[in-house]
């Protein structure tokens, strides 16, 4: 079974540009999560999709971040315009059920560097 995949693995952009990150969850997983780890800090929750709906977007830092999950399959996270403080590793995770004890399966992450 394929795990969670993320694209690209790395992205280097200049301040003010736009970047779109993609996450493909494990097939059949309704729950999809975005997290990020900014240098030197902990991994922080950004948002949670259940199918195509946003269940919780309390962690989205500001309106420069836009997440979508059209059709309830893959998700994209767009940063527009990117700022220096957006640099970090963006993780995607998925899980199958609503059970809060359930394992979240993580992707390898996208390393974003904003210059």
């Amino acid at each position, binding site marked *: 079974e394929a*795990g969670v995949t993320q694209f690209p693995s790395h992205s280097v952009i200049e301040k003010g540009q736009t970047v779109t990150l993609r996450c493909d969850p494990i097939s059949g997983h309704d729950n999809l999560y975005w997290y990020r780890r900014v240098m030197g800090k902990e*991994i922080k929750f950004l948002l949670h999709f259940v199918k195509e709906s946003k269940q*919780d977007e309390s962690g989205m830092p500001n309106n420069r971040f836009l997440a979508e999950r059209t059709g309830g399959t893959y998700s994209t996270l767009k940063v527009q315009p990117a700022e220096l403080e957006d640099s970090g590793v963006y993780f995607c995770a998925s899980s199958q059920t609503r059970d*809060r004890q359930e394992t*979240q399966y993580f992707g390898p992450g996208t390393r974003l560097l904003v210059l």
Partner: protein
Amino acid sequence: AQRVTQPEKLLSVFKGAPVELKCNYSYSGSPELFWYVQYSRQRLQLLLRHISRESIKGFTADLNKGETSFHLKKPFAQEEDSAMYYCALGSGGTSYGKLTFGQGTILTVHP
């Protein structure tokens, strides 16, 4: 607000020595706690969860509600245990999927 604290950024032990990675949490409800691990060049993966009360790769963790702790222990560390370890707290209610992570502890097991 919920919070997870891992006081040690770095922890070094020798092979065969006991190891304990500390985790304290702050949460007003009934906590769901996890340990996730990231080995070198691998993705973050679940190591164990408190509800299962299981031992994975020789690691155990006991939830102590009185001390609000969920320390990870292993009696005899192995070199392959070297990794980054994250303690995480699961939310309830409408935020049921949200994990709050600690800052992580880098464990190095020396031969």
